């Protein structure tokens, strides 16, 4: 997981200059606009990294509901899949599987 400062360095290396498109015309960003844009990109990239880390490794995050919902569905399937799992494995096995997801993604 890269820090914001590492993202700033990477983004500046990748983008020596930046342009914006205004009413169909390309305009180069001023130095102040450039630095503000790089800072915003780095902030967002670092935040996304933190979210991705929680999705992979578990833990808590402000986007708990979305993360848990996505991970939950991937782990146990939708409701018909879960009913099928219960039919084949029983309620106790299903509870164990659900608890693994709940324990991995904790409320912040």
């Amino acid at each position, binding site marked *: 997981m890269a820090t914001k400062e590492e*993202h700033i360095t990477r*983004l500046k290396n990748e*983008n020596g200059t*930046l*342009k*914006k*498109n*205004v*009413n*169909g015309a*390309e305009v180069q*960003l001023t130095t102040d606009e450039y630095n503000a*844009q790089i800072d*915003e*990109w*780095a902030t*967002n*990239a670092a935040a*996304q*990294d933190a979210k*991705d880390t929680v999705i992979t490794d578990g833990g808590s995050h402000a986007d708990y*509901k*979305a993360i848990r*919902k*996505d991970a939950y*569905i991937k782990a146990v*399937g*939708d409701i018909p*899949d879960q009913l099928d799992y219960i039919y084949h494995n029983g309620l106790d096995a299903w509870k164990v599987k659900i608890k693994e997801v709940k324990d991995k993604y904790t409320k912040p």
Partner: protein
Amino acid sequence: MSNYLGVENKGNPVLLAKNPISSAVSSITFDGIFDDTFSEYWVTLYDITVSAASGIQVYFKWRNSGSDITGTYYRDQIYASMNSANSGQPGNATYTDYNALTDFSFGTDATREALNSIMYLFPRTANMKFAIHDNLYTADSSNTYMSYLFNVLDDTTKVDGFSIYPSSGNIASGEVCIYGYKK
């Protein structure tokens, strides 16, 4: 017998701007494009791609007189994946100074991740700013999503433009068209 189509612009949208993106830019902005000639507008985003490899959202914000309209943007959304069971109706999300058009991150992998969207904009009302976005896009997960979201900004300014931009990195390609469709 009169009807809406007969009395209101005869059902013919008027193309006001067509902006193909020929090289990478950090944002696509239209200023002074909305005036009281029309009260309602369509904006189409065609095949918008980004430069970053993954983890990107696309943001939207209103503008007026060359400046961003800041504040709390509210969003309600319905989404569904075309190739997985992932779907939902997350409501009452808020964003500061922008709204998010895509919830599931995307980038530039081999599945040709891109965003296509039709936006229904009502920029000239002196009440709250409403917009409706119909989106179709392929995400990092290779899932293709449809999403239908409502974008609300509690600001009474009659606005004349908007901007879209990625959460990080450039927009690489695509095309934006703006139509006026109701006078």
